[in-house]
């Protein structure tokens, strides 16, 4: 049962992200991004990270994507999205570079899997993904980064307002 759901979510995430990256129209790109994010939220659920799964849907698929959609709405459609480099280079070189970077990453992660860590058997630990345990960690060990993050959001908001006003 878990395997079926994993394959479902994982395949959805990978295929939707492929489509998001390759569609010509930004609107399709953004909508496939939503699908990718929701499928990843499903994977988070399967990993027991319930709080993060909810946040993923709320923050990413909700807020961030709405921002993207606003921008898509405000710009004119352009048909000029040609490959960045002339000829076949963009179609071949860019994916090749990405794969060449991805393969060692895959290899190292695969080698590392199960070799360290407290459990190698596969029966996963009681998750620790509940809101309570994350909140406890957030407000005790990680309280300083938490405050800095709130400052960062404030700066982003003020910066965005300052940039937007400067135009007029």
């Amino acid at each position: 049962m878990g395997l079926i759901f994993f394959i479902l979510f994982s395949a959805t995430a990978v295929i939707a992200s492929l489509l998001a990256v390759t569609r010509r129209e930004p609107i399709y790109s953004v909508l496939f991004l939503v699908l990718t994010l929701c499928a990843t939220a499903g994977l988070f659920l399967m990993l027991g990270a319930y709080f993060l799964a909810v946040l993923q849907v709320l923050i990413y698929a909700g807020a961030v994507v709405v921002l993207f959609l606003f921008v898509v709405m405000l710009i004119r459609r352009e048909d000029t999205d040609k490959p960045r480099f002339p000829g076949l280079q963009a179609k071949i070189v860019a994916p090749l570079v990405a794969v060449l970077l991805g393969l060692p990453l895959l290899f190292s992660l695969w080698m590392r899997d199960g070799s360290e860590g407290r459990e190698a058997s596969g029966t996963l630990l009681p998750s620790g993904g509940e809101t309570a345990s994350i909140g406890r960690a957030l407000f005790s060990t990680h309280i300083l980064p938490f405050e800095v993050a709130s400052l960062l959001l404030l700066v982003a908001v003020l910066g965005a307002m300052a940039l937007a006003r400067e135009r007029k």
Partner: protein
Amino acid sequence: MMTGIGPYLVTGVLLFTIGLAGVLMRRNLLIMLVSIEVMLNGVNLTLVAHSRQLGDVTGQVLVLFAMLVTAAEVAVALLVCMMLYRERGSLDVDIFSRLKG
């Protein structure tokens, strides 16, 4: 039930690689930002998988911060997108290679 987190890591790496290919391949600034989101998503998945494997909640806290930073980043990046679009009438990154001042 599956054993281990290997499949999750593979999915994360696939997402990261796809996003990287998108950033390298596309010229539309907006779609490049979407690709960056896909990359971040792959990294987040890897972090959550490792957090689960180690039974340590720190990885999930890190993902939480990554989400917050992403939200801030996207807000500013899209605003800059809009300003560049108003300036140049296009989101083609090649045009922006001639930015000055």
